[in-house]
Every structure is written in C-alpha cells, then in structure tokens.
C-alpha cells in the first residue's frame, strides 16, 4: 500500500488502481445485517473465540430515547441471547432523567467525570467514548448513539458479527441504506449533508480509499479494544473522522468493515448545528493532515465559528468557540496500563 504520507496524485493509472481496491473492499467487507440473523450461531462463534463484548451508549439528556435502547439490548442480546456481556451508559452530566431511566431498565450507568478522576474532565461525546475504553471490560466495544427512535438489536449484532467472523477486520462502521424489501435498479447511496458536502470531498482529496465508507460520521460502530487503546480521541465533532484516518493509517482499508443496518430514524439537526459540526470536523481533519505530514505550514487555526442571524433589519454575528481537544491513546495512560497489566 502506498504510504499515506504522500497524498494521491492525479495519475489516471493510480486512480484506476484505487478504484479497483475500493470495489474489491466493497464486495468483501460490506455487509447487510440480515446476514447475521442467526444469533444462536453468532453467540456460539463468539464463545468459541472467548471474546467479550461491551456496548457503550454515550449520553447527554437523552431521557426520551434511552429507555427503549436499554430495554431492547438487554432483552434481546443479554437475556435472550448472551451476545453482549456489558451494557453501559456513559453520561456527560445529564440534567434530565437519562440516568434514572437507564438504570431502571438494567444498564450500568457511569458519569464520565468519575472515570479516571485524576484527569481534568472535558465535556464532549468523544470524552465518553474514550473513557469507555478504561471503564468497560469487553474485547470489543460497540458504540451506539442514544437518539435512535427505531432502535433494534440489529444495530449491535450487525456491527459485532463481522468482528466475530473475520479476525482481520478491526473496525466496523454502520451505514443505513437498504430496507429488506427494495425496488430494483440504481439508487443514490450516501451519508448526510455534512458527509456529502465536507467529509467525502476531503477524503476524495486526501484519502480516496476512505470514500468507500458510506457513512463515515455514523455514531454506531464496533471496534476491537486492541485498536481503540492505540488511537487518540478528539473529544468533539471530529472523533469519527479522526478514527477513520488513524485506523486507516495504521492498518489500511482491509481493517474496516461496514454493515447496512437498514434505516435509522433520529432527530434532524438544524443547518446551523451542522455548521458547528463541519467546523469541528474540519479542524480535526486539518490537524490529522499536519500530524501525518501531508500538509506543511498550516497557520494557527481559529477556534471561533462565526454565524449570523437577522433581527428586524439588522444582522448580528454569533460566535461559537469550538475547540477540538484530543485525548491521547488510552494505552499511554498509567492507570489504564496498570489496570490492563500492560507494564
């Protein structure tokens, strides 16, 4: 594989090679959840390998949807089939009933600020995901957003199954496309607005093989601990994008899998919020380019996003400070090394 330190050229031969690698990966590493519907067989395979699986749900004020997520996962993947060994909510400090609801229906509940308390707490979803590596026990951690209205246990078994069946796959990402019944023919297949306007164009420019990840920003993915503990974690919007780049840099495209989980119904975000997300992702992306030596001489990047609103006939500026702070790889944290016996 060509080193990532050299951005792809416009050489047509090379472009063709990339295209064929993408096609091959799509045909071998893209799955549909219905391939893994035999949960008894899946549990058997998992037990044969001696694997343990943790599900982590990062939350901040998710009382409306967290109960359903916990009930479905506990009933189907813990009580009925013992596919998952641990179901945990890691919370950023909810002020609603998120923790009460999650605990009521059987999830283990943790406050992110109480995990690794010796470290100065930071607020952000990535912080919860990172701390999950220290707190949870599984060999595989499956992350699940808490705001999915049509939650179903396929959201977990569809993601962990490729890791159970294919030892070379290390990181499985969700995408949402094909219902079980669909019409024949070509249909557009892609991500949301931020993916198609920002992330895929950036990947096309700098990491063309990663464009094959259909929904790079989806919040549902399952990863082997041995990978998670070695990568840094931006705590804000850039966490998913940075993960893809870091795992790609270390292991290449073949370490990824992606599973079609059918449809996902969730809250639609206003365009202004997507602007904040895009800003955070762009900062994290540029920072990765710099650390990988793919660009030089980047100026100091602003942490202020400026948006505007009209009040009567006047226009007002609104400033948002968006910092993309980053946690180091967990295997560099002494408490983790001690807990896992890494020294």
């Amino acid at each position, binding site marked *: 594989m060509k080193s990532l330190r050299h951005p792809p050229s416009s050489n047509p031969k090379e472009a063709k090679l990339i295209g064929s690698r993408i096609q091959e990966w799509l045909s071998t590493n893209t799955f549909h959840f219905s391939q893994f519907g035999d*949960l008894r067989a899946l549990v058997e395979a998992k037990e044969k390998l001696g694997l343990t699986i943790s599900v982590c749900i990062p939350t901040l004020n998710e*009382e*409306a*949807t967290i*109960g*359903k997520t*916990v*009930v*479905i996962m*506990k*009933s*189907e993947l813990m*009580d*009925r*089939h013992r596919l998952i060994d641990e179901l945990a909510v890691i919370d950023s400090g909810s002020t609603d*009933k998120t923790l*009460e*609801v999650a605990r*009521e*229906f*059987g999830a283990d509940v943790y406050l992110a600020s109480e995990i690794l308390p010796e470290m100065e707490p930071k607020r952000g979803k990535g912080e919860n995901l990172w701390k999950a590596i220290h707190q949870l026990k599984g060999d595989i951690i499956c992350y699940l957003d808490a705001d999915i*209205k*049509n939650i*179903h246990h396929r959201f977990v078994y569809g993601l962990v199954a490729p890791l159970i069946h294919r030892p070379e796959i290390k990181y499985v990402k969700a995408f949402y496309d094909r219902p079980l019944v669909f019409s024949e023919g070509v249909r557009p297949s892609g991500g949301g607005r931020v993916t198609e306007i920002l992330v895929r164009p950036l990947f096309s420019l700098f990491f063309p093989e990663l464009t094959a990840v259909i929904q790079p920003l989806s919040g549902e993915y399952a990863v082997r601990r041995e990978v998670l503990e070695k990568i840094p974690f931006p705590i804000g919007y850039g966490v998913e994008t940075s993960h893809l780049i870091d795992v790609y840099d270390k292991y290449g495209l073949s370490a990824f899998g992606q599973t079609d989980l059918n449809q996902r*119904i969730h809250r639609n975000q206003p365009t202004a919020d997507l602007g904040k997300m895009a800003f955070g992702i762009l900062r994290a992306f540029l920072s990765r380019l710099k650390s990988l030596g793919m660009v030089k001489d980047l100026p100091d990047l602003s942490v202020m996003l400026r948006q505007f609103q009209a009040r009567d006939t006047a226009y007002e500026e609104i400033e948002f400070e968006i910092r993309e702070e980053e946690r180091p790889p967990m295997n560099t944290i002494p408490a983790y090394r001690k807990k896992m016996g890494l020294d």
Partner: protein
Amino acid sequence: MNKQSTKPNTGFTIPDRASLAAMAEVIREHRELALGNILLLSEIPAPPFHEQRRIQEFMHRLIECGIQNCSVDDRGNGIGILPGTLGDQSILVAASADCVHDPDKDYNIAVQPGELTGYGVSDSLGISALATLPSMLDHLGIQLKSNLVLLATARSSGRGNLEGIRYFLRNFKQPLPYGICLKGSPLGRLSYTSIGMLRGDIVCTVPPEYDWTRFGAASAVMIMNQIISKIVAIPLPRKPQTSIILGSIEGGSAYDRIARKTVLKLEIRGEDAALVKQVGDEISDIVAETESESGAEVSLDIFAQREPGGIRISHPVVRSARQVMEGLDIKPLIMPSTSETSALIDQKIPAITLGLAESRGISEEQDTIDISSLHRGLAQLIGVLVALDGGAAS
C-alpha cells in the same frame, strides 16, 4: 432473591397464593423480555388485512424462543405450538395481531420508568404477551402437559370481523378443550360471554348534481345529524340489556366547503339476538327514510355480526380464572366480549378473555401501559394455564 426460592410450586391444580406471588416475582425479574417484545411488535402498524409484517415479527419472536413448530396459515394467522410433555390435548391462547389504528401515525413507543407510551401500545399487548409466554414458562421452569397453541389472529378487528380465528377454528385438526383470549387492558378483565352485536357504517353522500334549495339540507353533516337524532330516539330496553354505540363520525374537508360525505361507524350490542336484529332493522328503516326525504345517497353497511352466548360464571374455566385472580389480588372486572372469545363460543369451546395490564388513553397517541401491573397480568395468564393444564376445568 435466588431462583431456587422463587420457583413456584405448580404441583397444585390451581396454584396457591404463594406460588402465584413467586411466579409474578420471577416474571418481574425478567420483565425486559416482555417489554422488548412489546416494543418490537407494537411499533409495526397492523391495520386489519395489513398485519403481515407484525405476524412475521411474531413468528420471528417465537423462533427466537426455540419454538420449532411455527407457521402462517392461508388467512395470515401466525401459529406456534409449544409441545406438552403428554401432548394429549391442546390449550389455545389467542390474541389479535391487528388493530383498527391509523397506519400513518407515529408508532414509536417511549419508555419511561414505570410506563410505556405510544399509539396503539395497549391494543398490541395481547400479541406481545403471546410472544413472551414461552420464555416466561421457561424461566419459571413450567412444562405443561398439554400442547400450547399460540395464535396471533389476522383480520380480527373492524371489517376483519374475526375472519382469521374463524378460519383457524374451522381448519385446526386437533381438539381444543379450552381457549384463553388476551386483551391489553384493563388488568382484571374477565369475559366469558359473547354479547350479540351488529357493526356497520352509515354513509351519507351528497351527489354533485344535488339540488340544495329543493331539500333544504345544509350539508352531509346535517343529514347525518338528522339520522343520529332518530337513532338516539329508538327506545332500548334495560332488560335484556341493549345499547347502540356511536363510535366514530367523520366527514367534510374544510371550514369553507359544504360537506359532501359523512361516515358514521356504529355498533348495536345486546344480550338478546332478536332484539339486536330488531334495532338493526329500525336503523335500516331510518336510513331508507332519510334517503328518500333528503335526496342524498344514504346507505347502511352491516359488515360484522356476533351471536350472544357463552359459559356460566360457575363454569370451571371461569372459576379457575377467578381463583387465580384472587390469589394475585386482581379484582375481576366482568364484561362481555365481542372479540376472539365470541368465535370460540360460537364453536362451543369454553373460553375466556383476560386483560393483562393497567393502561390509560387507549387508542390515543398517549396510550400508556403501567409496567408495574404487567407482571401480575402475565402471572395471571400462566396461573390459569397451569390450572387448566392440571385438570382444574376437567
């Protein structure tokens, strides 16, 4: 509490109070299985004649419990059979898969401590309990001697007119000495009689060429109003009890447009079949009279009918159910049925309907089940099954 101490004593024909309490406790400990089934089944819209997706999920749920003998029959009923240790007789437990609900509404269910809230959740509780039953029997360590026939009926509600269960009863080859039908709520509901019933729609349509000045009617709504006034003036006897339920009315399209169509959905219920028919005939006369007076097209379409009948309160099946309810401190709410139980009664099969949980706002968007009542409702069902299986009603 360890499992050893909660294992119920099912050696008695009718489980005693302590055994029932132990059953309820085990069920409470595994309540997520029941809640999971409610979520997975209730969020699939299933209006009559369009219940296939819910039935498929029901089948999937049974297969997940390890039930090998599952099938969908020609009318779309979902059937699973849990073989008994002797298998010399079968007990039917049935619930309707379909509900008369608007398929375009939001069927998502919100889970909060102590409550499940969502459109149609109470009406889907019966089929959800059916799907949960094998797992709960397993956790309770109960193996019935009889085969347990779990039936999710298609085409049951509204214009379905119990078509699914009637088809099943005509074609199921094994004898069914008893039937238990499940309804979501209220907890304590106990039906062992079927009430006579006629169900239909009155449709009033004003044709485009209608001469408004000649007949003086302002709109289809006004014509329906006249019909309703005449219906409520029909004298109804208290004994035998007879009633007319005006269930729903819809018509018109906007504030500023004269309504051209109105539909009234109504049911006539009564303990005496002849009286029910007589009231039906009177309503038919009202419809004909209004049509000729108004010049609009008015029709009555009776599409569902039930014959009154049933078993006595002293019947061993009812007595067993009442004793189980008493053991669980559930107060029986005795009411007649017009649902699956009617079809069983028509076939001379002793049958009861049981309610499973407390709820509020049935058929509304804020339909809410009280989770804390559910384990007693399921314990009641299993207690009655154990009693019937043990020969309490022989």
